[in-house]
């Protein structure tokens, strides 16, 4: 029994441990210092490439505020809430004057939201279908899985603004190009997320459905889908937030939504109309983010209670 309680080498266990510990710290030190040097090297390299110097920063930063100063509305308190005068115009300095095109902006923002909604619904449908093929544990054929994964990588690898640019050529200026562009990019992103959720699902129910003679479609529909549906919904909502932001941007290349108006006001007027549009966009995006966040948390919260 004594052999169990001694190390056989008659060495003090504490000093033996301390020797090992010092060795481990030395080994780790070498790795850490190497990584630190490499990181610092890349940081300096990127600073040099982008010519990120304090004097350029000092010269450039105030000009950002200068620009915003030039597009700030000149509101005057005494006429701020005045309505149209006898000539049918708002007096300069009133909110009505600043937001003369309010209903046009609102219509365009509504269009932007609808674009994001359509793209999200289309992308979710495509991503669900592709995610079962792309997930390594679900795929009916390994080659089809690899193919689906490459396709999804391509879809999310190309930014939506680039797809929009190409699609404006193909289907013409307007929201359709924007919806398609966002759909393609969002399919890639959601497909990846969904397939990872699928890969984490339990395969026991799938075995169960397989054993009753269910086809691959039935195995996915009954074995996997019920497990992953709450996660799918949450990810799709989160993607909707991102798509609202994206559809506000694709307008810059003529693919519909508020972006076209924003680009127009920036390049033609550069006056208080820029802030008028920008403020509405920021308010909309924030409102949708907050709303969708609440819904998502409620969904996830309900899950974690089980």
């Amino acid at each position, binding site marked *: 029994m004594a052999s169990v309680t001694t190390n056989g080498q008659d060495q003090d266990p504490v000093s033996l441990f301390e020797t090992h510990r010092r060795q481990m710290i030395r080994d780790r030190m070498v790795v850490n210092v190497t990584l630190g040097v490499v990181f610092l090297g890349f940081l300096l390299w990127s600073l040099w490439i982008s010519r990120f110097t304090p004097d350029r920063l000092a010269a450039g930063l105030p000009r950002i505020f200068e620009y915003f100063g030039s597009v700030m509305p000149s509101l005057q308190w005494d006429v701020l809430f005045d309505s149209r005068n006898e000539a049918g115009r708002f007096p300069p300095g009133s909110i009505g004057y600043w937001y003369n095109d309010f209903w046009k902006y609102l219509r365009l923002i509504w269009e932007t939201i609808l674009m994001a909604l359509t793209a999200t619904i289309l992308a979710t449908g495509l991503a669900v279908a592709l995610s079962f093929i792309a997930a390594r544990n679900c795929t009916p054929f390994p080659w089809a899985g690899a193919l689906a994964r490459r396709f999804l990588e391509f879809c999310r690898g190309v930014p939506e603004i680039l797809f929009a640019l190409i699609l404006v050529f193909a289907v013409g200026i307007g929201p359709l190009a924007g919806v398609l562009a966002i759909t393609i990019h969002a399919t890639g992103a959601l497909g990846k997320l969904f397939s990872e959720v699928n890969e984490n699902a339990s395969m026991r129910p799938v075995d169960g459905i397989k054993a009753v003679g269910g086809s691959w479609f039935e195995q996915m529909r*009954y074995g996997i889908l019920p497990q992953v549906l709450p996660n799918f919904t949450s990810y799709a909502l989160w993607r909707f937030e991102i798509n609202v932001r994206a559809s506000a941007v694709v307008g810059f290349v003529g693919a519909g939504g508020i972006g076209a108006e924003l680009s127009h006001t920036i390049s033609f007027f550069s006056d208080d109309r820029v802030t008028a549009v920008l403020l509405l966009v920021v308010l909309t995006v924030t409102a949708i983010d907050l709303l969708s966040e609440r819904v998502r948390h409620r969904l996830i919260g309900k899950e974690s209670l089980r």
Partner: protein
Amino acid sequence: MLEFKGLTKQFNSTVAVKPATFTIPDGQMVGIIGRSGAGKSTLLRMINRLNEPSGGQMLFQKRDITALKGRDLRQWRNECAMVFQQFNLVGRLNVITNVMSGRLFHHGFATSMLGVFSAKERAFAIRALDRLGMAHVALQQTDTLSGGQMQRVAIARALVQEPRVMLADEPIASLDPLNAKVVMDALRAINQEDGLTVICNLHTLDTARQYCDRIIGMQDGVIVFDGTPKELTDKAARDIYGAEAEEAFSEAMTSTALKPSAPAQPEVRVVN
């Protein structure tokens, strides 16, 4: 009649099941015993081809099971129901849908994707649940049930397949003694009332002795015993279990053998 002709399974370099040749007549209740890793599960899962055999042949009513593909294979799986140790139900669906999923083989693409089941199928599923005393939980979400309840739902799902063979892979290994007895009683009743062939992997000796017509003992992928419970002497059992014999025997004390002297249970039905 289920005929095994040199059926074997190899995982890379290890042989899980060495060529097995035996015959199971219709309506028999067979218990397969052996220590863990003896190849019981692999043998059972080869019968419905959840594990592909690496060699040999298996015939059911003269039909070659090992050669089936596509729809024919799914039809065989539908005829040959399986009950699992971990139940393998879909926890997030309700109980009745889980039971009705036993009918999926008979569904077309559209109705199964949309989850549309007929009133006849619902009635069939409810009768199966009722037979196992589980009709009262039909609309509950399945993952709210206890283990014993889930296993009875799984048996109901197997029953609505209208199978000719019932496979049970360690059906009571994760259940407490009372639920284990309920489940084994149900399997025995199905075997005797419906005349189904039941093939059951068990890890406790006395359960096999008590419920089965025939016991097959496996050790390291080889069938080392095949006979009636009476023929399974203590010595034969020790040969099957080897070093784990003592464990298997002491485990027997805690399994389905509810001592008659124990205080009478009000009713064998778990409601929670």
